[in-house]
């Protein structure tokens, strides 16, 4: 249930970056979430729809890329995703393992529209 402050942090960052790029509107937002980061996509989206109103990022689509928890065995070198019950290497059984990825929680891209261009409107 900590997604509200997290979503607020995301919104602040997006609005700041959009302003720096002189964007009129943000249409799409790309986010990487590692498995260890414990954030729920749907919950971020839920709060997003509420708090982004009235900002340049109102209604933007959030795209989440999930990064699974990846562990590497330091004995045999095998990288694997744990089954949730143990972190031991499924190949050699070693318990000497290290976390390689899964802690990410970052903004990796924005699609923006620059200030509206004058255009012909057909009537």
């Amino acid at each position, binding site marked *: *249930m*900590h997604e509200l*402050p*997290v979503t607020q*942090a*995301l919104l*602040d*960052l997006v609005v700041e*970056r959009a302003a720096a*790029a002189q*964007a009129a509107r943000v*249409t*799409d937002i790309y*986010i990487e979430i590692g498995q*260890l*980061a*414990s*954030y729920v996509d749907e919950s971020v989206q839920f709060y997003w729809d509420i708090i982004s109103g009235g900002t340049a990022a109102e209604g933007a689509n959030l795209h989440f890329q999930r990064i699974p*928890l990846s*562990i590497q065995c330091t004995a045999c070198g095998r990288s694997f995703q*744990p089954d*949730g*019950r*143990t*972190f*031991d290497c499924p190949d050699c059984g070693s*318990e000497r*393992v*290290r*976390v390689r990825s*899964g*802690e990410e*929680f*970052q*903004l*990796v*891209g*924005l*699609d*923006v*529209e*620059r200030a509206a261009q004058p255009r012909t409107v057909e009537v």
Partner: protein
Amino acid sequence: MPERIAVVEKIMGANERLAAQNRRQLDEAGVIAINLMASPGAGKTSLIEHTVKALRGAYDIAVIDGDVASGIDAARAAEAGARAVQINTGGECHLDAVMVQEGLEQIDLERVDLLIIENVGNLICPAAFPLGAHKNILIASIPEGADKPYKYPGMYKGVDALVINKVDLMPYVDFDMAYFQRGVEALNPGLLTFPVSCKTGEGLLAWQTWLETLLS
């Protein structure tokens, strides 16, 4: 046509910057701060009571207590002999750097040696919100079960020390210590670990000694 801006920025960067600011404020005042995190009922407040009672003769200790509601924990810390500040998070499941900053404003840091921050009882959210403490410490407890590192890896991965409380219950609870420690070792190799019992006092001397080393 929309155009793509590539950014790679941590989303929680704002909290992290504030945490760094808290750390500077603590360092300038010569205060060592620890952030205690645990599930509800693991023994955060009990460990604080023991710690305050053991060290209050030699050090001035302040406690910032984070709770969803109530001032019970701060009252216990104050009774033990600490200056205690209660922060009610108003439903928020963790402390963040802003709340700690507000807590710091209520404490005369020049008169404090050790600041203990008691986070909200929760094994998920506090891991995502650094506060600026010098050491992040997790308290596990025997009745919680040995599978917690596997279920809450984010919490176990990010801490500087682990206290395993309620070791006096080992004979009565099925707790596979080897399985627990394998999980911890995978996530946080070489993690400093203190098996203790706040009930019997077992192991608390090692914990105290470590804190005194941080303070010296």
